[in-house]
Structure formats: C-alpha cells, structure tokens
C-alpha cells in the first residue's frame, strides 16, 4: 500500500495511524490493560468454579490439596516473584535505552520462566505416576474419589492454563529479545518492552493466587 504519509521528520518507531509518540504509547498501554482485564475474567471463570466446588466438598478439597508438593510449589512461587523483579529491571533499562541491560535482564527472566516450567513438568509427572490425573490415569482414592477427581480436574485445568500462558510469555519474550538485539528499542521508543512486562507480571500474579488456593489449602487440616 502506498504510504504517502511518511515525512522526513517521522519519528523512529511511530506507526502511520498515530499523530505522535505519546499517543502511540498511551494506546499500547491502554490496549494491554484492556487485554489483561479480559484475562482476569477468563481466569475468573476458573476461580468461580473452584470456589463453588470447594464450598460443596471441603473434605475432598483438603485431601486433594494435601497430596500436592508444597516445597516445589513454594520454590516455583519464589522463582516467579524473582522473574517479576528481573522483568521490571528490563523495563527500567529500556527507559534508559540500554540495549545490553535489556538483553541481560530478559535472559534472566527467560531462564526463570523455563525453570518454573521444568519444575511443573516434574510435578505433573509425579501426579501421573500416582494416578492422580482424572480421565487419563485415575486410580480411585477412597470414598471421596469423585470429588477428589474434581479437585484434580481444577488443579490441572488451572495450572495447565497458567502454564500455557507462561509458554506464550516465553515465546513473546524471545520476540522482544530479538527485536532488542536488532536495536529496535531506544530511550524514546520502547513501548513493546513495557507492555510485554505488564503481561509477564499478570501471569505471575495469577500464580500468586493459585499457590495458596491449591497447595496451602491442605495445611488447614480437614477440620469441619
């Protein structure tokens, strides 16, 4: 398409539909926040389902929770919190237009993200081994079995959806990394780093809710 709107003073990184850089940046940020709101509602459906069944079947949920590996879950929580920190540092470096800084912190963030997924892989394998995957390998566990299956359906549904978001996040991270390495981002134009950061923090926060709801619940004991 003919792009007659290109002027000589056209700032680097400004897309044709915008008047100036602040407008472009504001649009990108509002856009990402709007998207994250849709994500909150998306996970909200899972959380609502969880809360309803937890109130129906407290015993089964305590029992299911007590089979989860708290040390591994806690380790992963720390991993993600630290990755949020390194991500924030990458955004900070992008404001300075410090290419090397962005690359270093993005690498750290990526490594932490992968660590999380590897740990998750070992956790899932253990569940498969013990026959705790409803529908696939399910060895009945006592009288609460059906409701226990519900807990594990939610466990796999919620953590699986979260892991999917992590994988997408790492894909995006690689893309931002390549763009940075090509020298696309400057002190004036760095919105993509910033809005990718928003996404990454969001995915971390989802985990901060998942960890107590799924893992720590069991430590409350089976009271009632």
């Amino acid at each position: 398409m003919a792009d007659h709107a290109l002027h000589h003073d056209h700032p680097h990184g400004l897309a044709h539909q915008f008047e100036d850089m602040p407008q472009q940046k504001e649009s990108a940020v509002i856009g990402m926040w709007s998207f994250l709101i849709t994500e909150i509602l998306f996970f909200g459906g899972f959380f609502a389902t969880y809360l309803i069944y937890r109130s129906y079947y407290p015993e089964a949920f305590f029992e299911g929770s007590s089979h989860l590996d708290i040390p591994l879950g806690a380790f992963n929580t720390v991993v993600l919190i630290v990755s949020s920190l390194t991500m924030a540092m990458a955004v900070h470096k992008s404001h300075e237009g410090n290419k090397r800084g962005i690359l270093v912190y993005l690498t750290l963030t990526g490594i932490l993200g992968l660590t999380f997924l590897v740990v998750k892989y070992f956790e899932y394998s253990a569940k498969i081994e013990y026959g705790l995957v409803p529908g696939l390998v399910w060895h009945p566990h006592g009288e609460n079995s059906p409701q226990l299956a519900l807990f594990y359906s939610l466990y796999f549904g919620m953590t699986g959806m979260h892991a999917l978001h992590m994988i997408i996040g790492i894909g995006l991270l690689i893309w931002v990394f390549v763009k940075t390495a090509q020298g696309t981002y400057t002190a004036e134009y760095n919105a993509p780093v910033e809005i990718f950061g928003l996404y990454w923090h969001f995915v971390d926060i989802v985990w901060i809710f998942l960890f107590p709801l799924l893992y720590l619940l069991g430590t409350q004991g089976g009271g009632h």
Partner: protein
Amino acid sequence: MAITEQDVQASEDAPSVNYLNNGYGLKSWLLTKDHKRIAVLYIISISIFFALGGLFASLVRFELMTPEGDLMSSDTYNKVFSMHGIIMVFFFLVPSIPATIGNFLVPIMVGAKDLAFPRVNLLSWYVYVVAGILGTIAVVGGGVDTGWTFYTPYSSTYSNSNVILAAMAAFMAGFSSILTGLNFVVTIHTMRAPGMTWFRLPLFVWSHYATSLIMLLGTPVIAITLVLLMLERGFGFGFFDPNLGGDPVLFQHLFWFYSHPAVYIMILPSMGVMSEMVASVARKRVFGYEFVAFSSVAIAILGFLVWGHHMFVSSQSTYAGMVFSIITFLVAVPSAIKTFNWTATLYKGSIVYDTAMFYVYGYLGLFLVGGLTGLFLSSMGLDIHLHDTYFVVAHFHYIMVGGQVMGYLGGMHFWWPKITGKMFPDIWGRVSALLVFLGFNLTFFPQFILGYMGMPRRYHVYPDEFQVLNVASSMGASILALGYLVPGAYLTWSIFKGPKAPDNPWGAKGLEWETTSPPPTFNFEETPVVTEEAYQYGPIEEH
C-alpha cells in the same frame, strides 16, 4: 433528497485515489491493514454465514409446515436448529454491525486515520475466518445437536455430535470479537481528533463503546466455559457431571453470565445506527443526546446482572429469581429511554421518506414488540408458563432480527454510498424495507400465539391445532427471505451500474460525510478539527 450542485462539484474535484482503487489484486486485500478494507472483507464473510444460517432456518420452517415429523428425523431436526442458532449468533449476528459498519466508521467518526491497532484488526478477521472454517467442518462432518446454548449434559454426556469442534469454533469467534472490541475501546480513548470531546462523539460511537465493553468483559467468560466443556468431553474431567461431583447447572450460570450481556452485543450496535439515521431523516439533533449516550453504558452494566432470568426454572432459589426479575425490569428502562428519545427526535422533524426512514420506522415497531415481550418473560410467574416455548423464540427474533438485522440492513443502505461510492435505487430500498417488515411480522407474530398456547420450542412434531399458525409463519418466512434477497440483488447491481455517489448524498452531519465517497486510505486529506456538537442541523425549513 436533493443533491446540491456543490456536492456534485465536490465529488468531481475529489482526489481519484481512494481506499478501493489504492491497490488491486487479492494480496492487496488479504494483507490490508486498512480498517475500511477489513470491513469489506467482513461484509463478504458474514454474508456467507447469513446465507448458510438462513438455509438451516428454511429447513426448520419446511419441517414445521406439517404436524408430523415427515421431512427429517428428530436427530436431524436437533442438528438443523442447533446449527441455525450457532451460525446465526456466533458467525453472523455478533460481528454483524461492529465488524462491518463499525469497523468502517468508528475511526472516521472520531477523525482518525485508522484504528489504533490495524494489524490486530486484520488478525481478528483471520481468527474469524479460521473459526468459520472449523464451524463449517463441524457442520459438514455430521453437525451438532446441542442447541446453540451447548447446555450440559446434552453437550457432555448425551451427544455423539461434533461438540468439541463447534465449541472451539465459537471460542475462536469470541476471540475475534474481543480483538475488535479492544481496538474500539483504545481508538475511542486515544485517537479522537482535536476538538472531538466525549460529548461531541456521534451516538454510533457511544453505542460501539458500550458494545466493546461487553465484548471485553463478557466474551472471556464464555471462552472459559467452553474450555471447561471441551476439557470435560475431551479428558473426562467432571466439572458438570453429577456422577463425578460436578453440577450441570453451573454451566448454565457461566453460559448466561456471558450470553445475556451478549444479547446486548447483538442489539446495541443497531441502536447506534438508529441514532444516526433518525437525526439525519428528521434533520434534528437527537433528543436528549446525553441520555441516549449514557443509556448505552447503563445497558452494558445492568446487562451483567440479569443472567438468572434464563434460569427461573433451573433450581434457582425464589429469592434469587425475584432479584433477577427486578433487575431485568430495570434494564428495560434505558432501552425505553432510547425508543422515546428517537420518537421525540422525529416529532416536528423535517422528515424525508427515503429508505433510511422506512428502516427507522420498521426498527421502532419491531424493537418495541421485542422489548415489551421481554417484560412478559421477566415476570417470574408468567415465565414458568412461557419458558422454552415459541413465545421465547418469537421474543428474541423480534430483537435480534427485527432489531439488529433491521439496523444492519438500514445502516448498510445509509452508508452504502460512503462505502462503495455508488448510489442504489431508493425506491427499491423502500420496497425491501417493507418486505422485511411484513415478512418478519408474518413469520414471528404467530409464534407468540403458538408459544402462549403451549407449543414448546425444539420439537418438530406438534398437535394438529397448531398447524395453521405454523403454516402462516412459514409463509412469512418466504416473504422475509425475499426481503433479504432483493437488497442483495440491487446493492450488488449498484456496485457495477449505480450512479456515482456525492460526498454527502443525504445532507447528513458527521465527519464521515465530510470526506470523499469512498474515503481515501487515510480517511481525510488532513486531520479534521471539530468545532461543534454532533448533529448540528440548521433550523427546519417549511416544506
């Protein structure tokens, strides 16, 4: 409407490069980032699905001509009405106005060069197309028999049809509308031209803003609901299966939490079209502009609090039912505000009896009936009698087809000169509006009576005494079909043979009428500066 000499002059002086002739060939269309071209792509694709959905509707009406189930088996009938509903709702009605007329007009109306994220806009069309292909595979590969509502356990335990595929298709269509809504919200927030304050925005933009809010807040919930359903069918997770501790009614709650707001996705955009057309045909500012603007937002918010009115008979407690019933009555208030304000706008207006006016009258009449019968259904006691009868079918068709499809067609006529640069024969426009209005009433009014007499929906065998009204309905449907085919014919004709359109054929107000027909790729020669309120029509002259 008289075309002034000035108008003709203006269009002859206009630059000859516009969005349509700026690049030819398939590639220039399939890789376009121009919101106007994407709108055209959407118009073509949703028309295909409208035709497909209409085909299934015809099959339903053929079958219902006789009390016996003679044309198809019960299983086939289940599939036919399910696919009619799924296609019409997810692939035609939800994108109908926003993705086409809205996509074309929102950036122009706010005075921008394009939407905020042109690539996301193109992506939304591709997601829609992939969803459409998946949906078509589900239909061709044996169909779906769950009803468009996908209720469990019909969709989990008791269906052998392509539920996962159809759910996946609906999920993706939803994703495409999230992307459209997101683009609108950002564009309206950040891309308004100098001087275009919020309260100078055309009401079309306000209604699209409200629609986009629902798309952003509601669609993710249907998405997760469909994910849960797919997990249940695919992996045997027991979210909705009582044998596994799940609860099938939870599905209905999650489904209607989205789908009630979504019915407003299927009506608000046409209300925006109405506001523009009413102001233009009456040559007056829309009466009570702020009220009409805020009623759109009120509908969007209240719409999230009423889903329980679909579940009065689904084991919901009486008190919950009462609350849902009262809030449902409240939702009618902003809708009524709009209807009253349009009528007040017409009052003492300088009315022009052209195609747009015919569609305005048709819409007012049909939407009124649809809205008022909604009040019947929100009364709990009455709804016990009417739930899942043809009364409900008639009610939602009066809104969705009488409202949104009428608004879509009216809007397509109103902005046709802008979109294509060609004029259509106005007399045919008026004929088509009349055909649709008459055919529609003949099709769906009898269904109110049938439902009231107790004919349930989704059955193809019925007692003999219902036959007369069913035959009437089927006859009406053929007139209605004609009403849709005729505009298809003369509008297509006008693209090739119609006279060239002036920039502002209706003498209407609004930025879209200040640029050329069709507009240049970046919409305006230079960024417009807005200095007055919307709809500043001059004093009315006596005829």
